[in-house]
């Protein structure tokens, strides 16, 4: 850990992208689960995720990065699903 003499005044973080070092997945009480069969690949979940917890490869949703998902549920709320069936549902952690 840094000493006070080693800190940047004003607590400015001079390094870009440093939030990747800060894993926030342990805050979660509800876990999003992806039901691939109902996913239309609209990427609304990726767009709305306030962190970087929706994994995308080659332009397609591939699942969640639970190291960063705080379980806010925005993705599940915004998911249009397919024919009325959600592709993301929230489940209580520990069940």
């Amino acid at each position, binding site marked *: *850990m*840094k*000493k*006070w*003499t080693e*800190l*940047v*005044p*004003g*607590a*400015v*973080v*001079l*390094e*870009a*992208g*440093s939030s990747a070092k800060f894993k926030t997945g342990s805050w979660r009480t509800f876990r999003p689960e992806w039901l691939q069969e109902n996913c239309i690949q609209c990427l609304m979940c990726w767009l709305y995720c306030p962190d970087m917890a929706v994994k995308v490869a080659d332009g397609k949703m591939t699942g969640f990065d639970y190291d960063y998902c705080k379980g806010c549920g925005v993705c599940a709320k915004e998911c249009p699903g397919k024919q009325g069936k959600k592709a993301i549902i929230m489940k209580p952690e520990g069940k």
Partner: protein
Amino acid sequence: MGKVVAVTGNEAVANALRQADPDVCSLYPITPQTDIVQRFSSFVANGVVQTELLNAESEHSAMSAAIGASAAGGRVVTATSSQGLALMWEMLHIASGMNLPIVMPLVNRALSAPLNIHGDHSDGMGARDTGWVQLWSESAQEAYDNTIMAFRVAEHADIRLPVMVCMDGFIVSHSIARMEYLGDEEVKNFIGPYQTVNPLLDMEHPKSFGPLILTDLYHEYKRLQHEIMGRVKNVVLQVSDEFEKLSGRKYGLFESYRLDDADIALVILNSAAGTSKDVVDELRDKGIKAGLLKPRLFRPFPYEEIGKALKHLKAVCVMDRADSFGGYGPMFMEISSAMYQADGNGKRPKLINKIYGLGGRDYMPSDARQVLLELNEIAGGAPVTAVKEYIGVRE
């Protein structure tokens, strides 16, 4: 070249801000400060300054905008009074914690309730623990000079801290007095171009302001803030020396008036110090060795220097134009601390505290005379009957 004028304190400060030509001014009007931002808005409208003006919807927003603009990398000003400063409160801590050199004239005014628009120091004293540097001013001249120096102090590479320049509402802000402006070029050269430190708008070097810092590092960041605040005294003295070369007007951490050979003294801030100095002269003529100390830099408080300046006295009265209900007056607490630490070979002056002038109540020569005569009695061996007392109050 300097120009002698007769102007109000607000006009003087507005012109100091004009001469500094800040990048951004975020504002919200409040009596008795309104006049400053109104005049400054005219400067912007008339193209006299290049400043971007932001009309905020509250003082909380005005300070928030100032913080954003300062972090972005601009020279930023705002101004306020009383409830406006109170509403800024949480943002004041953020400005100082983020080391943002915002300059803010504070036209001192009482706090509600009951509602009062007149001058006292409740607002500024309430902000003494916000991490801002505070310079206090007796007159329009001092408010103008302090405002100009505030840019140099705030933006100094050793500190980068927000600075509040305090002057008395109405008594100074709205009274016309003789003072001297510096030339626009002189001020421009004195303040110099704004130097950015870690500006947010430097796209080549992305960075974050305002991170979450918990138990692991918060304590260290506050230790750093304490360290930086400790450097302010030297910066203020250095800037004041340079300012004296420019203007011929000398400023220190505080003003000593006939103090060296005094037995008794008042410690008093801002405009009431002027009235008190007249009475000190009057008592000197009668053979009473009276003196006065007027703090200028109140945060950080120069404990050692003030302790040294007062330790030879027999009795001192600290005059507070604000109360800390349930405590002594705010300045009395500082002076008591300074005197307890001062090395006086086991001796220290008797200290009393008078609360005066709240909500703009007039402070008259008779008030100063009454207090100095009481001090003279105490210096002669009379007991202190009350440490803290209101004066100029109907009993």
